[in-house]
């Protein structure tokens, strides 16, 4: 959503990039030869592992985008419960907190199993750049993306790399 805060810059951006894969792009498979991938969110389940490895193999520049990808952030709070807590997490979310049809979604091959712990992206694959923030503010994204478009390694400093 913070991305949308880029307002008119989005139009400039659209002229310079082709969005080949995203939750709002109708592509089932992550394509080959991608220049830049902004990864949002931490690695939480087995599908994510497969996905990030695929992304890494097919992408030149991988960016951890936002605190969840960089630190695990709020999504990783469940790790404090200790290893092997997946079942409890699901129990709490889908049974205890449910108002309708309490049941844990389970379907092999459809619902990916949760990992023992949530980890930031760079613990699994090599990450080229980090864009912190929850969310990263629009000016911060703009500065970062502009530098990338200029072919530079983005250099952010000061509050532009503030966590949170």
């Amino acid at each position, binding site marked *: 959503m913070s991305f949308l805060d880029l307002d008119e810059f989005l139009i400039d951006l659209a002229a310079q990039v082709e969005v080949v894969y995203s939750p709002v792009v109708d592509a089932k498979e992550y394509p080959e030869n991608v220049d830049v991938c902004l990864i949002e969110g931490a690695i939480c389940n087995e599908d994510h592992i497969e996905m990030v490895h695929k992304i890494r193999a097919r992408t030149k520049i991988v960016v*951890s985008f936002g*605190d969840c990808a*960089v*630190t*695990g*952030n*709020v999504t*990783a*709070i469940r*790790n*404090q*419960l*200790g290893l092997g807590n997946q079942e409890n997490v699901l129990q709490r979310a889908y049974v205890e907190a449910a108002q309708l049809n309490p049941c844990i979604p389970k379907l092999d091959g459809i619902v990916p199993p949760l990992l023992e*712990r949530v*980890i*930031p992206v*760079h*613990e699994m694959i090599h*990450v080229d750049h*980090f*864009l*912190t923030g*929850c969310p990263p503010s629009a000016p911060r994204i703009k500065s970062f993306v502009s530098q990338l478009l200029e072919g530079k390694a983005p250099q*952010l*400093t*000061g*509050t*532009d*790399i*503030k*966590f*949170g």
Partner: protein
Amino acid sequence: MAAKTLTINGQQVTAEEGATVLQVARDAKINIPTLCHLDGMKDVGACRLCIVEVVGTPKLLPACTTVIAEGMEIKTESDRLRKYRKMTLELLFAERNHVCAVCVANGHCELQTLAYEQGVDHVRYDYLFPKWGVDTTHERFGMDHNRCILCSRCVRACVEIEGAATKSIAGRGAKSKIISDLNEPWGEADSCTSCGKCVQSCPTGALFNKGSTVAEMEHDRSHLDYVVTAREKKLWVTHA
């Protein structure tokens, strides 16, 4: 008191004998990062962020506890120091659960500020995700051990400034924990005077005023400064 002349980052400075490198540097508007130092309290040299290079000394010295000497040549910045400082901060982030996005001190946190000042944009060490609790039993204040960096400022505020000695550190190593009285819930610690000095001294969101929500907790050091200065200068002694 004799004056001493020394150089910091090539800049010549003169200061009173007995002053620390940190004091002298700050007077000369040279910023040295630190987390465990707070004006008015005894320095403990614990956070190791204020380490500086001194020409002729192979060891890195903490600016907060190193007393100046005539002719000292000090460097407060170098690749090596930057690297170590960055690592120290990363170690802190990995040690407990610092989730800035949902922290009461977000935007007003010394750890967070130092992190971006020192260029920490991610943590290379595995997060340890220990299980620590939150103590909200005190009627006015709360303590979230997840955000504690064990700088011991609250302990020193409580012992040295307030004189209540409600706070201390229990355990050792990574299991160290700030406690109230006999490791009781804070609200049950009867030595606590509810003065709030510990809360104001905390560099992170570990100690907070109850009712603060994300980014609302701003620590106010001026009150501490007021008490310490008044005491040092004996402002409140009645000369009857």
